[in-house]
């Protein structure tokens, strides 16, 4: 088992290295020049051609791609992600500053989507051919189809503007304060969780449908075990693996930043950091934020794998 873990870690290293190279070259191949974009916002006449060239040279962009990449790798080995071309701040600081809002949102959305998924998943499988099951089915189909930008604006309109119960935007920068921080968190987390929650409901429903027809479930019923106990003791446990897989994939994606929801809710997370960086062709920042997202994704999947081992004893002997 240890060798398997080491092998996985090595694979992750290779994956990150490939990702770093892919992003490094892609951002430089995408048309658009970082300094040209920067100066297009400045007062007319600022930044002539010679000056732009000197900025290019200072950033090392005049060197061949592979030489630049080698330099970048050397930096990375020293734990240095470089400096943002736009703000001049170290990339690692920028990522650090955007991490808390992203994790807060991702965590809340994960919990909400798990709750919704399990609730609606049970409702779908137990409520077949009943009116509330049909209702849940319609709700889930609607939720799967709902685009998150539209859902976000709608929620802001209803709860922020018309009812006035919740703030219309933003993240509370001044630490985690009750009740301000959760009040700001509700709408974005809800928006972010609707879609994965609905998909998870379908996933649980289909898994339960198979499990509930298994012989051991019939045996359990036969020896007089009630529905609740069948579900908790036998059926749900066997749907845990797909749920963990799904949750890991979702959280892994959220941890890299949720672009649309962060934009609609003025949430200063990694997703918006990355989008701004791409619009500005802020190379070091794009690379840093992407590498971070990739590493977070890999790490979370690695944790999910360890959880499989805990959940399913059979896997320990593979």
């Amino acid at each position, binding site marked *: 088992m240890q060798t398997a873990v080491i092998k996985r870690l090595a694979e992750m290293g290779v994956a990150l290295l490939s990702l770093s190279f892919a992003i490094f070259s892609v951002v430089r191949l995408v048309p*658009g020049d970082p300094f040209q974009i920067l100066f297009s916002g400045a007062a007319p006449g600022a930044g002539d051609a010679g000056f732009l060239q000197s900025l290019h040279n*200072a950033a090392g962009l005049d060197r061949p791609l592979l030489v630049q990449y080698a330099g970048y790798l050397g930096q990375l080995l020293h734990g240095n992600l470089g400096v943002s071309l736009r703000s001049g701040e170290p990339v690692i600081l920028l990522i650090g500053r955007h991490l808390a809002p992203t994790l807060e949102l991702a965590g809340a959305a994960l919990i909400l989507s798990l709750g919704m998924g399990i609730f609606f998943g049970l409702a779908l499988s137990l409520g077949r051919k009943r009116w509330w099951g049909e209702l849940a089915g319609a709700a889930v189909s609607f939720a799967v189809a709902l685009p998150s930008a539209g859902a976000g604006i709608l929620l802001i309109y209803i709860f922020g503007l018309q009812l006035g119960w919740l703030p219309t935007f933003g993240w509370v920068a001044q630490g985690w304060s009750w009740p301000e921080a959760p009040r700001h968190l509700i709408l974005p987390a809800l928006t972010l969780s609707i879609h994965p929650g609905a*998909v998870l409901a379908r996933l649980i429903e289909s898994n339960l449908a198979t499990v509930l027809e298994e012989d051991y479930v019939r045996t359990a019923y036969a020896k007089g075990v009630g529905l609740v106990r069948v579900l908790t003791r036998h059926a749900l446990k066997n749907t845990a693996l797909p749920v963990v897989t799904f949750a890991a994939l979702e959280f892994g994606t959220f941890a890299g930043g949720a672009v649309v929801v962060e934009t609609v809710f003025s949430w200063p997370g990694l997703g918006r950091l990355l989008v701004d960086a791409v619009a500005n062709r802020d190379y070091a920042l794009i690379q840093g934020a992407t590498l971070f997202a990739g590493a977070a994704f890999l790490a979370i999947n690695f944790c999910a794998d360890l959880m499989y081992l805990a959940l399913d004893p059979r896997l320990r002997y593979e």
Partner: protein
Amino acid sequence: MLTKRHGSSRAPRAPLSGRVLAGLTAIALTVALAAVLTVAPGTGGMVYGTTGTVLAEAKARPQDGGALKIAMPYTVGTLDPLHFMADADFHVITQIYEPLVLFNEEGNPIPRLATSWRNPDPNTWVFHLRKGARWQAGNEVFPKRTKAEVTAADVVTTLNLVLNPDNKATFYSKLARVIKSVEAVDKRTVKVVTQAPYAFLLEDLGHIPIVSKQVVERVGAGQLGRYPIGSGPFKLLESRPDNQITLSRNDDYYLKPRLARVIFQIIPDKSVAAMALESGDVDVVTQLPPLEIPRISADKRFTVMAPASGSYRYIAFNQRKAPFDDLKIREAIAMAVDIKSALKAIFPAESLAQPAWGPVPPGIPGYDPGLQKMWTYNPEKARELLAAQGWVDADKDGILEKDGRKFSFVLQAPNDANRSKLAVIVADQLKAVGLDVKVKTEEWGMHLQDLAAGQADMFVMGGGSTPDGLLYLFHSGLVSRDHNTGFRNAEVDQLLDKAKATTDAAARKKLWQEAQRLIVENRVHLPGYYEFVNAGVAKYVHDFKPANYTLLLVAPDRNVWVEKR
């Protein structure tokens, strides 16, 4: 989003490497997609004005204290006074720092750190500094109750930082070719000597926030963004550049600000910003989304305000490409375009834009409403002119040809809503006279790159809406890569050079108008419109005017305050 499994009856146990690969691919794709989809901020540029928006001022008595929450759509790039670029950065920086002068809505200089200035000769500018202007105290460099005065040494240090190529200041290349020397005459007098007479020195210095020599010596020129210590009316309290920037009143300022706090709230989605205004979560929205304007202006709780001066937007010919090198062709195409009806289709409110007939917007010296007479809309005549140049529809397919070549080309626009609509409408108008126009909208960075490379046939662009704007739109030696039309006209260059060296405002305005007439005659651009970004302001906010050159909250003629509710 990643692999979503609908209705699979087995646990999704794809081999992990496959999942990881899918995940990483998704991340890479997101980056690539974002490159294509992001709408970058427009060119904007600083705008100046002469026609101030006069506010119906309530009769309430000014109140002291309170906070003003301003919603802005764009992330503040940096608070570094030497390296800022965008308007949003400047709006925040000028609350904390002060240049020698600022400009009001009428385009007149407002004394800030300099109280007066004179020209003993055309190349020499002598600035007298304000007595009692002090550096903000209560920070790493100036402890509480320090009374460090702003002196000539600070101004000299700042300008020399800008002029030193090693510092790579935003204004380096612009000022280095103008300024010969900077010198402190005494504690409160600075002498700036130019290489040649230069009319726009005040405007340029109006973009240079003065930093403290002591701060520079202590933290280094590269670290100023982390130590925003200025002499302006507000101090930085907390900065999260893409979320919230909080400023607090500087009690040592020579005009005491009435606001205790100013909060810049970054709300990237403009319709959410409008809702935040309506729900009372913010007090001012700097950019209302056009479609919300009719509704918000009908609401008694708010005022919709336009800035004093607009931003110039235009369609240009790339004169490096035939047949656009031919003035007759450009004249014909100009006749086929009806800009007024295009604007009616693009803008839901008249306060948002007015048709442009020349490149100098109203509110900028040299604006000339008489230019309208030089444009006529006459598609019939356009067809005749094109036929006279040999372009006729011989094969009756609706598209003109000459020597077997069809008149087809690409009109390229940036992907912001208004300019891309303009491109589509104008393309339709040109199709009506037999031109085969394809519209291509590009992401901002790609658009800029194509323009710099001279690749677009015709393009939609904007900018240069400043007193010196014509230089960077039309002067063949100074033209910006973003406005690359290939236009080259010795007479225009001469007039602009002469204007640039004319410090007398009235004489310069005449030269500017003369140059502008020539430019319009040459049909370099089809002027589109002057765009006025509308702000939404709650009625309990008093004395507020939307940013024109910069956001002025505290000035001799205003001191923004909020009514307690």
